[in-house]
């Protein structure tokens, strides 16, 4: 069993095998994503009852929280891929980082924008320097740094390895940044208490959230596999397997 896992892992490390494997997965993942997202949206927008304190506005949670969770998740996967890329020099791991960075940045952007749009009806202002929004903003800068570094280095291999290192350094910093911003926020606590999530969540409000989170997750996987395939073709354009795969 263990050897089976190890051999499949090693086989997937080869670009042509991964390309084919990802190619078969993508359509299924896309279908699942659409299905889950549709059902989650239905549950969140139509079925879930209005919140006692926040009224209808709380429904923004169904896009805000999944975006925020994904923004963190994607960065962690980038860091893990970074470790694999640097230690085992796996090309697939390098390509994962390059492909996921813009996706993670988009999720972070969405988390910030939806958080801001939630803030206006809830707290009366579009932006508030609360702990979560501020940490999320710094996370956006970290993503942009990875994207910029990737764009600045000519050689694709060196670029990926540099980004791998940056992702690892960044992931160590994320809890530190989050904690420091929280500390800073409690020090300067204004009259506004920022706590959009309910302490005890009604189950009818909860399951659409989990469904949307799963849908966002599958969306990410669909897209990262799509982008990795493109990236692999780009990097290996002169090789035999690319010629065979495209003709």
């Amino acid at each position, binding site marked *: 069993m263990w050897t089976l896992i190890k051999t499949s892992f090693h086989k997937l490390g080869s670009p042509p095998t991964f390309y084919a494997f990802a190619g078969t997965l993508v359509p299924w993942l896309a279908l699942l994503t659409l299905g889950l997202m549709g059902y989650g949206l239905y549950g969140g*927008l*139509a*079925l879930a009852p*209005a919140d006692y304190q926040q*009224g*209808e*506005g709380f*429904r*923004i949670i169904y*896009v*805000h929280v999944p*975006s925020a969770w994904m923004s963190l998740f994607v960065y962690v996967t980038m860091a893990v891929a970074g470790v694999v890329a640097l230690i085992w020099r796996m090309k697939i791991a390098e390509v994962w980082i390059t492909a996921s960075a*813009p*996706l993670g940045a*988009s999720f972070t*952007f*969405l988390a910030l*924008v*939806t958080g801001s*749009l*939630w803030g*206006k*009806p809830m707290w009366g202002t579009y932006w508030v320097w609360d702990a979560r929004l501020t940490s999320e903003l710094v996370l956006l800068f970290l993503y942009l740094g990875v994207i910029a570094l990737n764009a600045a280095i000519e050689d694709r291999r060196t670029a990926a390895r540099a980004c791998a290192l940056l992702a690892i350094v960044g992931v160590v910093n994320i809890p530190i940044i989050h904690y420091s911003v929280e500390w800073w926020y409690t020090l300067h606590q204004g009259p506004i208490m920022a706590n959009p999530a309910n302490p005890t969540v009604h189950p009818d409000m909860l399951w659409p959230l989990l469904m949307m989170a799963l849908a966002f997750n599958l*969306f990410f996987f669909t*897209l990262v596999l*799509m*982008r990795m*395939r*493109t990236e692999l*073709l*780009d990097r290996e*354009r002169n090789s035999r397997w*690319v*010629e065979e795969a*495209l*003709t």
Partner: protein
Amino acid sequence: MSLSFLLDPTGHGPFILASYGISFVVMAWIVLASAIRGSRVRREILSEIRARKGKS
């Protein structure tokens, strides 16, 4: 069981629509951009392959 938020008297409606709207736009853009880049790269490589085959 209704899309009650659209008729929400407290006025949260536009914010909800904006949030979902921008989420949809960003996700659609990601999909389109990735697909367009994918097809562009494939076309480039195919023309390179044809050029190579043509020369030999």
